[in-house]
């Protein structure tokens, strides 16, 4: 349980990585985040989160092939680890439980 708590942004990033599958690297994660949440996050911020997730063991990475568009520089691809998946599921479960115990009447009539 220790260290398996993830912040809101970290959770979002993890979900993005999971949804992107093979193509999850910092730029695409950033784009996906933008597409889903509408938040324009800077590369530096995302990278910092990725670093933290890596340290917590929720994410692992590997270097890809160099490409012409990046001036010959390689990309770093990210993958959610087992621990990361567990953490995500746990969070999802916690949310669901909380939602279930809320009477639907409270959210009647609210549109997003």
């Amino acid at each position, binding site marked *: 349980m220790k260290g398996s708590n993830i912040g809101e942004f970290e959770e979002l990033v993890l979900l993005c990585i999971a949804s992107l599958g093979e193509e999850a*690297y*910092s*730029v695409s994660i*950033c784009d996906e985040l933008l597409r889903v949440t509408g938040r324009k996050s*800077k*590369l*530096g*911020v995302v*990278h*910092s989160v990725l*670093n*933290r997730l890596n340290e917590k063991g929720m994410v692992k990475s590997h*270097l890809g092939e160099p490409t012409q*568009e*990046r*001036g010959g*520089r*390689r*990309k*770093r691809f990210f993958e959610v680890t087992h621990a990361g998946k567990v953490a995500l599921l746990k969070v999802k479960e916690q949310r669901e439980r909380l939602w279930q115990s809320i009477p639907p009447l409270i959210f009647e009539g609210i549109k997003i």
Partner: protein
Amino acid sequence: MRRKDRYPETKSPPKTAEKFLAWFIRADLKEEVQGDLLEKYLDHRKKYSSRKANLLYWYQVLHYLRPFAIRNFYLPSPNLYYMFRNYLKITFRNLNRQRLHSLINILGLSISLTAVFLLLLWVNDEWQMDKFHANADRIYRLKRTIPLEGHTLDVYRGISYPLLEAAQDELPEVEKYITIGHTFEENLQIDNQVIRAGGTFANASYFHAFSFPVVQGDITQLDNKIDAMAISTTLAYQLFGEAWQTSALGKTVHIHDNGDYTIEAIFADFPSRSSLQNDFFFPFQAHLRDNEWMKEWTNNGMQGALLLSENADPVQVGKELEKIFQNHQSGDNKEGCFLQKFEDDYLYGNFNAKAEVDGGRIEYVQMFLAAALLLLIISCINFVNLATARASKRAKEVGVRKTIGASRKTLAGQFITEAFLITFLSVGLAMIGTWLLSPAVSLITEKSLFIDLSSLYTWITLVGIIFMTGIMAGAYPAFVLSSFQPIQVLKGRFIEKTRDISFRRGLVILQFTLSLLLIVGALTIKAQINFIQEAHLGINKDNLLVINQDAEVVEKYEVIRRQLEGHPSITGVTLAGPSPLEMPASTSGVSWPKKRPDQENIEFCILWTADNFPGVFQVPLHAGSYYRQTEGPDTTHIVFNQRAVEIMELDGDPVGQTIEWWGKPRQIIGVLKDFHNRSFYEKIEPAAFLLDPDNAGSLFVKADEGQISEAIAGLKKTFTEVIPGVPLHYDFVDEQYRQLYKSEMLTGKLTNYFAIISIVISCLGLFGLINFVAEQKTREIGIRKVLGASTGSLVTLLSRDFIRLVSIAFIMAIPLSYLFLDKWLERFAYQVNLNWWLIFAIAGFSAIALTLITISFKSIQTATHSPVDSLRME
């Protein structure tokens, strides 16, 4: 055209941002971050204008300034320790492998560092003079200014006693006045023992203000009892032996010509860093009693200092004192006075025409400091030259190191460390050298010089020197050596940049120019000193003995004279004083018909003489005749020198004219030819000669050429016979004269040594260089020989370059040295007429000769080397 315009499809982010990112980003993140940002940028370029894309790029870059992404600027690395050990190892291995080269390097550095240390010791000693007094910042010397023609001021140390007294009585800021008398030698007698010592008069404040500790007794008795006396511990030991501590106090000592005094106090020996040196003191009041004339405001027969209260303003006190002083004077053109800090007098003793400090011994200190720096530079140049010349040998090492990942900075660090290590070694050797040489140097400079390892300053200076030398010597080679490109070097295609070669050549020229400067300087100073010593002074000081006056000598003068003149080795005996070669006594109490108001303060030197003065001293008469022997002093006649007559602008023949001397008329009966009566720095002063043998201070005995020892024997005999109670003590006049120029002689000696050391070091450097060049060219020479080159042409090949450099150095040194030395000679009123061409010729010739000798050995050896051996190396 910009690259963007030529290749429009190449879009790149702003360069500065890229560079900035590359600089701060952590190394392992660098690649992916740069890639990511580039991708984003290109994306933006498609959607937005280039300006917006650039801005966004900057935006992104700046947001990478997060703790996790910034590289580690601080390199603690435990590796540092191991690296250092590696450097040490490599340095020693290199030193061992290139023994000759290392020897040259270390030797050169050690020699010059030794010289530098000795110099710094001397400078330090001079600097510390008189600074040890606890009250040093409150003690001020009183100095007097005299207005002369043309609004110039002359500064004197002599002041009048009433002024000192008035200072203490009338000015509240003055706590005490201190009497400073001229130190003279006297014979002190206790029971039957006679010791000769130096001392003077003083009041008790002398010991209260200055830090001269009193060991026994009560020093205030110097003020209370008129027959009190204080002596130093050394003198006590000399007079009373081992038991002086119990037996000295209270005893009576007889000072010849002065009287009997009782020892009331014993003081510790004056330290060597005191400009005042005395072994005994008798009360100032006693001196005053015997010299009533000192009580007059117009007589300035002593020196003095004032102890001011805390926070007193010396300038203010000086001004008020001047007011008091001038109140007691009459007429226009009044003399003035001011205060100078006591400790400053030693180094800053010269004043210019406006009575402002204008140098003095401090100039010598500055000169020697500059010389020390010069020497250090010359040997650092050596180091730099040799290191960069041999760069090609280290090239491979550099290449390999760079390949396995050493940065340029690391390499530079390595080479500087090497330089520091070598400097360290040299400093160690230099310390040993200094320790060995300091006794000898102490002797020459008459100081006690030694390295004080307990003083913090010593260590700070040492570290500072090591640092400075290490950087000076190591910086450029480190720069050059670390710049080698590994690819070129490892492939073997190592070619030296022309820039580096020219720099080296420039350094050699600089080195030799400096050395030549020193050589020319040494030669010039030597010439001037010789000139001073040998110059025709107008007065003969050879074979002349001087015996200081004693009341008994004066009494029995006639008897002594007759006896001595009868001696075959003695050609003349006379009385004269104070000193014909220095004429310290002077007066302005002379009046003549054409005297102008601005000549009010002209001082005429005075010499009291006996009637045979001109004969014994061989000073010819310009006009008239000298005195005839009379009963007692002659007060109606007077004799001047030419300069005096010049100033007085008498019409017609001066002989027979009347002038006023000390208020009474006198007739001029003779004019002596001018002779140098002051130091060679100054022009000949106007002088007057009085007939008054009783007041003439010293007995002069002239011996025959080569008969000095016989003359001395005869003198001794006469003394024992006629005046048995008076011990004989004599000096040689020409020796005394030489003493006047001690500083110049010291300068001359030291400059000689410098010149020698610097040329030796330069030649050492040259030797190293030519060794190296010879090594490099071994194969080339071998091939040339095979093709038929003569030995001569090969030698020329090797040496031509160096000779050319030395010649350029010579040409540059000529105008520079001329400038400096002309300025130095200006301080002498009488300069030697230098044959400049001769000096330059000698300097240049010796430089080239030494260069040739240095190179010849190696070049001839290489040229005659069998080509078979050198070519076989393939």
